[in-house]
């Protein structure tokens, strides 16, 4: 191959729900993060000797059928190296099998069901930790560090992410000897939690609330619980990693909230800070939620694998991905344990208070 061919772009597909409501408030930041990383790589001269990354983005419109056809279009792109996208397992499952049968790796930036690789096959990779990891981490932190014994759990039943989170949290928390005193559910589109709040208020013997929620309802939940005068600690997963948790309830009410997230929140230095600054500069807004960072890392991880593979052959890239041992991402160091394609990543625990997100501690799962 001549020099001209060497400069051919590297094709990566992005499959995100960008319109039609639903997950677009998660997917759009993720997509922005991904684009940002690609731009930064390209501005720095590209990879594989100056080849630029070219993203073909397809809007999957919050529709599993659109996702499936988008995947078909994506895998048909000539020279496609990998696909990136989706923040919920259901959608990842609509796309990934088509990449699997085409033999092209699919890296999900936001879907966190640890079973995904088993369900899809060897081309399926996760950038975030599995829900089991963060839910276990929170369960342990709640039981051991905070000394909580009885929790109420609120679950968004409309997403696989949140139902999974609840499952794993309950599993671990009860294993440790804790009790679930109350289980309540809602749907992503709900805005009014007054009925759940009243029930929580009238349930005795609850030490804390575990809110298994996505970013859209995170701030509202905190606001409504606190407005009712309930001071119980609120626990959550990375769905709470959004500014809304601070700004919607306001400084006075946003306190005693703990959530697990990727190891960048609350860190004011290093790649995390660099990412935040770049994001702010590019989009004129702070990263909206954790998914922005995850999209950024998904792109970075793929680029890293391509570099290590030294090739744009999907099979080689896939192999390199599987062998990732220490990719330094914004959301922590990604390492895939042998034969697993869910990364071993540290879980950060953040405490909200005083109008800020305060980094508490990091838990690294035993992989």
């Amino acid at each position, binding site marked *: 191959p001549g020099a001209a061919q060497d400069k051919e772009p590297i094709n990566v597909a992005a499959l995100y729900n*960008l*319109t*039609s*409501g639903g997950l*677009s*408030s998660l997917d*759009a*930041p993720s997509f922005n993060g991904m684009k940002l990383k690609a731009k930064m790589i390209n501005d720095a001269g590209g990879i594989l000797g100056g080849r630029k990354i070219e993203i073909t983005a397809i809007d999957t419109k919050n529709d599993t059928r659109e996702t499936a056809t988008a995947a078909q279009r994506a895998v048909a792109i000539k020279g496609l190296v990998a696909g990136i996208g989706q923040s919920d397992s259901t959608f990842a499952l609509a796309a990934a099998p088509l990449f699997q049968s085409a033999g092209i790796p699919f890296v999900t930036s936001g879907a966190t069901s640890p079973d995904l690789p088993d369900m899809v096959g060897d081309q399926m990779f996760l950038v975030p930790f599995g829900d089991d990891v963060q839910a276990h981490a929170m369960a342990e932190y709640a039981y051991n560090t905070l000394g909580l014994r009885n929790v109420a759990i609120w679950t968004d*039943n409309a997403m696989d992410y949140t139902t999974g989170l609840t499952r794993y949290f309950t599993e671990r928390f009860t294993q440790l000897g804790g009790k679930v005193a*109350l*289980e*309540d*559910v*809602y*749907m992503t*589109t*709900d*805005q*009014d939690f*007054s*009925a*759940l*709040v*009243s*029930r929580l*208020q*009238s349930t005795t013997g609850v030490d804390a609330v575990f809110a298994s929620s996505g*970013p*859209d309802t995170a*701030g*509202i939940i905190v*606001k*409504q619980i606190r*407005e009712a005068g309930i001071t119980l600690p609120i626990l959550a997963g990375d769905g709470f990693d959004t*500014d*809304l948790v601070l*700004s*919607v*309830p*306001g400084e006075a009410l946003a306190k005693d909230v703990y959530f697990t997230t990727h190891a960048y929140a609350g860190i004011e230095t290093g790649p995390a800070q660099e990412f935040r600054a770049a994001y702010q500069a590019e989009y004129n807004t702070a990263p*909206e939620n954790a998914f922005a960072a995850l999209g950024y890392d998904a792109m970075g991880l793929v680029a890293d694998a391509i570099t290590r593979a030294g090739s744009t052959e999907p099979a080689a890239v896939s192999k390199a991905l599987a062998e990732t041992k220490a990719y330094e991402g914004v959301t922590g160091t990604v390492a895939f344990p042998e034969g697993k394609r869910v990364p071993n990543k540290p879980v950060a625990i953040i405490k909200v208070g005083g109008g800020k997100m305060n980094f508490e501690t990091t838990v690294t799962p035993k992989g």
Partner: protein
Amino acid sequence: MTGAYLLSQIVNGLVLGAMYALIAIGFSMIYGIVRLINFAHGDIFAVGAFAALGSIAIAALPFPLAVLVVLLAGALVGLLVERAAFRPMRGAPQVTGFIASLAVAIILENLAVMTITAQPRTFAIPAWLGALVPLGSISVRVVDIAIIVLALVLTAALVGFVRFTRTGMAMRATAENYGVARLMGINIDRMIALAFAIGSALAAVAGLMWGAKYGQISPLMGTVPGLKAFVAAVIGGVGSISGAVLGGFVLGLAEVLFVGLLPSEFSAFRNAFVFAALILVLLVMPNGLIGKSTETRA
């Protein structure tokens, strides 16, 4: 279950119901005159919320002035939409307008997503609106009271307007038969535009109140409340303003009480229960709670 618990659930239901009612009044207003199920209503509601955000948070207008801006913004968008999408197909079958309103909704939503993204935003309100007012064994926020009062006052005002003023009567005549209304000397274009302006302004105010209550707004926030308002309007009896309000309260109460009074395992079935109950209501009263019997003379 304590009395306070039941009372607080009822208050919750009333406040939620008042929100639905606020949205549903405008919906019913437009339906009543134009026989149009305006699915873009929920999006105008969102427009109102963002107009409020702009005028309170960005332009730092005092609250009453912000309300005025929101009213105007809503009316303006309503007029624009009426002019562009509905007036050209006047006289077409009802369902045509319904489809057009869906198209308008899609346009507004996608424009919003393209320009300001689908991200939820924080909606901060003046502190006095968030203050607590004790009410027997429980306490309620000023904003909640404001919402209920606003819903009731607006209903009374609108019902009075439609029922007792000359313009209101002309609007009702227009609703029935454009041709004959014109034969009475009524400028039906003006009546329809007026209905859109009022209905949309009300939706916009509802958006403001929604933001004030929940503290968070997003361009797509109107979809579900819009749908619920449609349901509320129908439960009450389509086209009836007081029916819309009643329907809103019934819907809000039903929703909260279902979740609140049944064991929590059932709260996942919230929407299913609410809809099943509403279907039951409709089966008993096929024309809604205040709906006129459609038994026509043969």
